[in-house]
């Protein structure tokens, strides 16, 4: 049993390494982009949007923290979408567990987040954010979000095998959702009737928990509770959906 899990992790890591190498194959700066990207975004979006925030001086930290967590979800789901199709040959021939492909894509997104954390640290130090014990909450938060992403990824990747439209739809949805979860503009700026819906939205909650921890060193127990429920429920649903249709996928591919 123990051997099985080890092998499993090994495969995930190999797949992830391949993924990252492929992504930056012809690029000179390579993985440095994962650090540079958030910084570049923060600077320009900060100039344009800090005027809308109620606390302009906190806006850079607000934005970069929220965005980093948002990107974890968006890249994880977007890349997982085609996970089964891309690995067609491995999928049929190799004796690896089929979940591995999804997990490796999600893990890749996590590795990317890890690199972005360098950018985060730079910003925190420059702005002078006091880092206290709530940093643990962020780690839990990232873990929950990852669980949530994995659940969604399973659903998406399974559906993608049958309906190719999903890819196009999801690309556009991601772009739209980014504007619906207060990544750019703080929630106070949204129309009143949208507050309630946004506050229940898991994709608003995960970045928000992290922001609260960093900016104020506090967290909301109720919010954390909702976050856990979303993560667990989505994860289980994703796995169940995948298991039900696993045989169909194999046939179709």
């Amino acid at each position, binding site marked *: 049993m123990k051997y099985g899990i080890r092998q499993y992790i090994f495969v995930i890591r190999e797949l992830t390494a391949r993924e990252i190498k492929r992504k930056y194959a*012809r690029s000179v*700066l390579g993985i440095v*982009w994962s650090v540079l*990207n958030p910084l570049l975004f923060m600077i320009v*979006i900060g100039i344009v949007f800090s005027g809308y925030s109620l606390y302009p001086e906190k806006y850079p930290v607000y934005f970069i923290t929220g965005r980093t967590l948002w990107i974890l979800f968006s890249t994880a789901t977007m890349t997982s979408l085609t996970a089964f199709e891309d690995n067609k040959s491995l999928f049929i021939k190799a004796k690896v567990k089929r979940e591995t492909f999804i997990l490796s894509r999600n893990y890749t997104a996590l590795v990317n987040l890890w690199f972005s954390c360098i950018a985060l640290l730079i910003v925190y130090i420059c702005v002078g954010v006091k880092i206290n014990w709530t940093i643990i909450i962020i780690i839990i938060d990232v873990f929950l979000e990852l669980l949530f992403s994995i659940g969604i990824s399973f659903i998406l990747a399974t559906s993608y095998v049958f309906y190719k439209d999903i890819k*196009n739809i999801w690309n556009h949805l991601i772009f*739209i959702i980014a*504007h619906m979860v207060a990544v750019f503009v703080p929630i106070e700026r949204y129309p009143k009737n949208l507050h309630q819906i946004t506050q229940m939205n898991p994709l608003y909650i995960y970045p928000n928990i992290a922001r609260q921890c960093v900016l104020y060193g506090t967290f909301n127990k109720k919010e954390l509770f909702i976050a856990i429920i979303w993560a667990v429920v989505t994860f289980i649903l994703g796995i169940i959906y995948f298991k039900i249709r696993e045989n169909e996928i194999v046939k179709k591919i």
Partner: protein
Amino acid sequence: MGKRVNVIEQYIFAIRQINYKEYKNQTNEMNLGWLWDYLNPLIYMIIMSTYYQNIIVKKIENFPVFVFIGITIFNYYQSATNGAMRSIVSNKQLLIKSQMPVEIYIYQKIIMAARTMFFSFVMLIPIIMFFKIRLTWRVVQIIPIFLLTTIIIIGISKILAVLYVYFEDIGYLYSVFMTLMVFVSCVFVPLEKVPDNIRTLFQYNPIYISISMVRDCLMYGTVSHISYWVKITSWAVLLLLVGNKFFKVNKNKFVNLI
């Protein structure tokens, strides 16, 4: 003369073939592929205009239309330049085998993007009727605006396509740059809300100029201010010259590189 026409006809044929192939690739796996061309801008319009209505202090009439035009024009810029940037590298095989001029691949991508934009503008007709915007004869302005915009895009595309052959990092850089441009082009935030010190920067941005000129002629039925016309024309001329020059100088080099 006759021979020349013949050659051009051949090029058009080639472009249409590549277009067709690409479009098929894009949509053949989808059941509702074609519908997306129409639906996308509509969905964007609805979401953006509901979520961002609060940050606008001064009320804008027909805000959804305002957003719609912004998104459509911006998408044209983005998809055309992005596609054209990668066109040379991705058509490597064809480029080596066939004898067509290299520019063809760039133009093909731009035509593809223009086509998508055309679909979006078809969608705009019912929206305009819904909001009861009265169109005047000044709508005709859209033709020169569109032409100038396309010339600007051709210029940018040529420069980018050459750079992309040398270093692919430009792809990342450009995608970051374009995402930022969304916010610097007043796609869904009016100019009045932008901080004073960077407002001038906006006004020299070709994407912003195109967007606001289209808004002028479609939404308000006015002729854009003369300075806008001057700016957009000078951008077009400048970029066309620089783009062509840059492309010619480097042409042999990068063909060899590939």
